[in-house]
């Protein structure tokens, strides 16, 4: 039962363009969402998060959008840079701490120079 889904295993984008990575969840108890970035041979690193009281959170080139009614979130990277090439994982949690953090399967982003 995959409660957090990233349906696109890979994505290629030209440098300077926008990258949009998508994530869907099924558990309505999730109210806190995180994105992680993973380079080869390294552990994932935290990128950005959003609470369900917001519908948008921005940090530099990275913006996460949350659509609670659709149980959908997306990560926008603008402008995309070659150093952004990595695997991006979406994760979901409930702020009450009753669920463990659940990760999606990841999307491999390639930014083409």
């Amino acid at each position, binding site marked *: 039962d995959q409660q957090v889904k*990233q349906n696109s295993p890979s994505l290629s984008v030209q440098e300077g363009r926008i990258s949009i990575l998508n994530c869907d969840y099924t558990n309505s108890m999730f109210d*806190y969402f*995180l994105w*992680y970035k993973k380079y080869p*041979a*390294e*552990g*994932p*690193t*935290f990128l950005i*998060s959003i*609470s369900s009281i917001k519908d948008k959170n921005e940090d530099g080139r990275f913006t996460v959008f949350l659509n609670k009614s659709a149980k959908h979130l997306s990560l926008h990277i603008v402008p995309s840079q070659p150093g952004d090439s990595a695997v991006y*994982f979406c994760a979901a*949690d*409930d*702020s*009450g*701490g009753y669920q*463990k*953090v*659940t*990760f*999606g*399967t*990841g999307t491999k982003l390639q930014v083409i120079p």
Partner: protein
Amino acid sequence: GAGVSQSPSNKVTEKGKDVELRCDPISGHTALYWYRQRLGQGLEFLIYFQGNSAPDKSGLPSDRFSAERTGESVSTLTIQRTQQEDSAVYLCASSLGRGGFKNEQFFGPGTRLTVL
């Protein structure tokens, strides 16, 4: 230590042998997770420790897998009678605690296990 450390970084073993993987979390982090990532696949949850609560073992794939944690410090993941399908990168993560921003996890570099 500034981050989560794991040892060994690489482990090659023969099928049927037991292996032990170690994780040192960030000091003060009450929550500790183990994940594995097989080649070309996503993060697979294995086990979760939170403070003194009973661990959530729901992700352990078989009874060959077990993990322990001493208080809120070091954790070891043990795989008995290893099989080739156990080959993967085993990742450990720690976080401040339970819920919301406290669950922003800090990952170690992983242990790459190869079972021949």
